[in-house]
């Protein structure tokens, strides 16, 4: 018997974010998306890292593995392989995902396990009080980069497209409805889905404010064909006066599960183990 989920079912604990923070919009959007997806909390596993963003799953109801800074994706990968019935969503900040966890992102895209990755991109390290993140703009001044950040701003959309991610989208925490739809699509996508979410940090990022984003973002419409690699790459490079949000890129490619359908047909987690059924592996060593 399936009961209809509602937002109330996802109501979680007290938040520890700053008033006005862009994370609130994301929290709302995630809850709405899960309701739209008609998932019950027990069917969902959120895996998060460390940072302000990564606290999100504590504020709704779901299964949760809140692991280490930067290590969401491998945990999510392992959990999904073990139990493909779970809807697995990895969630964290831009520092978490593009800084400390950068290597896992590259390889999660290659692996294409059917999980969704939400990155709260506030272009800052929030929880540690305002250092530059990989998506901070070149020249961004912080207490540990007093001469400005020397590194070029990372473009996560372009990066993901270059690796052939199966779903690449960008949302804005100021547009909850659009964002929650985007998350729905990401979760529904078979394979690894990256959703980068523009999220103002009202305390530490005085450059990329709500106003800053609001005056720049525009929604991709049907004139954009996400399956067109070239068009997608170009959209991915739009950053400045206009910033596109929506599904930027999609590519139909085999998922990890397609390569090994047995893990879906007979999930590892369901297996009853009988040691004697493995007796024959010792035969190989028989004298």
């Amino acid at each position, binding site marked *: 018997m399936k009961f209809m989920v509602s937002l109330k079912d996802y109501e979680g604990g007290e938040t520890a974010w700053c008033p006005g923070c862009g994370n609130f919009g994301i929290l709302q959007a995630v809850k709405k998306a899960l309701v739209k997806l008609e998932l019950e909390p027990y069917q969902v596993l959120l895996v998060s890292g460390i940072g302000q963003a990564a606290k999100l799953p504590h504020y709704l*109801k779901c*299964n949760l593995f809140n*692991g*280490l800074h930067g290590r969401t994706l491998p945990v999510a990968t392992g959990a999904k392989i073990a139990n493909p019935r779970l809807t697995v969503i990895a969630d964290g900040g831009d520092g978490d995902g593009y800084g400390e966890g950068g*290597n*896992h992102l590259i390889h999660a895209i290659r692996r294409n396990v059917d999980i969704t990755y939400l990155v709260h991109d506030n272009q800052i390290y929030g929880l540690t009080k305002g250092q530059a993140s990989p998506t901070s703009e070149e020249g961004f001044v912080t207490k540990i980069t007093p001469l400005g950040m020397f590194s070029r701003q990372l473009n996560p959309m372009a990066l993901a497209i270059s690796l052939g991610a199966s779903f690449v989208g960008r949302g804005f925490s100021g547009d909850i409805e659009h964002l929650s739809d985007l998350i729905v699509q990401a979760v529904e996508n078979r394979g690894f889905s990256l959703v980068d979410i523009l999220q103002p940090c009202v305390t530490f990022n005085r450059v990329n404010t709500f106003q800053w984003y609001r005056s720049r973002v525009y929604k991709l419409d049907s004139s954009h064909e996400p399956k067109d690699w070239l068009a997608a790459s170009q959209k991915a490079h739009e950053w400045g006066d206009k910033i596109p949000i929506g599904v930027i890129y999609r590519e139909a490619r085999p998922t990890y599960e397609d390569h090994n359908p047995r*893990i879906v047909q007979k999930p590892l987690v369901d297996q009853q*183990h009988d*040691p004697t059924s493995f007796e024959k592996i010792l035969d190989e*060593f028989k004298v």
Partner: protein
Amino acid sequence: MEVDLTFKIGGEAGQGLQTVGYILAKSLAKGGLYVFANQDNESRIRGGHNFFQVRASDRPVQALSEKVHIIIALDKRTISEHQNELAEDGITIFDGEKIKTEVPDNLLSVPFERLSKEKAGVATMVNSVAAGAALSLLDFDFDLLATVLNGEFKEKGTEVAEKNIQAASAGYDYVKGNSEGRFKYKVKPVNYSNQRILLNGNEAIASGALISGCKFMSGYPMSPSTPIQQSFASQMCEYDLVFEQGEDEISVINMALGASFAGVRSMVATSGGGFSLMVESLSLAGMTETPIVVVIAQRPGPATGFPTRTEQAELEFAIHAGHGEFPRAVFAPGNPEQAFYLTSKALNLADRYQIPVIILTDQYLADSYFTMERFNTSSIVVDRGVFFRESDRVKLSEYKRHMITDSGVSPRLLPGWGWGLAVTDSDEHTEDGHITELAEARIKNVQKRLRKFELLRQEISPPYSYGPADAETVMVGWGSTYGALKEAAEILNSQGIKVRMLHLSEIWPFPAQAVSSELEKPESLISVESNATGQMAHLIRAETGIEIKSKILRYDGRPISPQYILREFAKIG
């Protein structure tokens, strides 16, 4: 001991000497002998100098012997480097048509390559020729060798197998015709339990894991642990399990933790360098109470060190690795049998206490083959620990992943079960797994985790001791030195020198009482370790106050042999 023969096969990487060695070992084992075989390889794929050493005896052997009876030299360097290890009545066989060298008495030229070409039509079966030649010296039953060759090569087709057998028989016959009286040791097959197996430490661990229900392993190649990954992965075609190659070791352990959290027995195997990268996540396992077994196949460090050699220098690191304090167990098996059963125990303890368990091996144990009685699969009990079942539920909100209990162990609920939510956090957390800042929650959780450690302590079996109870001297070792230690103790006692040995394979929580009572009285204590600082001695002092002043250490990347112990023992004397 009537028979105690050692073969040494030397040559370049890529010449296939591991194949010769393994075939010899297997054939001798098939002849009813107890076999021990160890490997010495450089960190390269072709060239250089490697060797493979096989010891065969009519009584159990679990260590190498330095005295070599038959050298099979696949290159010239083998002769120059190892000729001096030959027993007086030993013999070296080599291909005199390929290798030009003076031929003293104990060198016997066998034209490996020519015979291979003649009999098999190709030059590539020199290894089988060499195996045949070597066994011929013993008058060994050729059929046994043929059976082994058939078993090894049949995958590549019956023709290949057949040709190898022919090549071997050419070597066998050649020696028969040309070595009259040159080698005095002859070996007749003896009856033996057909339950015997021949395998190395890595294979024992992988088998232990598979048979004990480990269904997920992630890995990143690193010597000498890679074969564990291989053995596990090779069963993916046969069974429903997953091996996944990670992009790095951090990914590897986190994938395993993810799978474990989702409810699947998970394990990883690496070496010291890879383990270093896992240290943060070991601590994560401690905090989130996620079961995980981590094998560290040690090799000499620091850093890259000697990638293909052996050392036992990560004992204290394994015990203290990870920031913060959390319970763990550390095991160090002494042979494949211990490796098999301890892997099984490790998986059970990891699940029952929801902790990381570390298994320390080293290249010597990992790569060395032992004949053992077949492991008893039906004695393997899989105990996944305590779970929160639907019947335990009163209402949905009630399940608490980190519920404070008397034992410290909180029942698990798997994500997706529906009668509760599994919530955990790397931050200090409330009972229901949510982040907290409260001192009281912290205190309760620290104590809960420590309580698990105290319970865990009772699971640790006492160390193995051997030798006269009234011995004045005790030699203490751990892990892979088991066989050498035991043999050295036997020899000393047989010489009338009363010596006891104490071997630790379950090291942490430390069995302080058992060790104290063994070491309290004897006057002379010696620690025997493949490291440079005597880590077990340091640990024993930390845990019991007893100081072990004498140490027999080896740290050149080569294994400790019984003879090495005896020589060093004599110096301490």
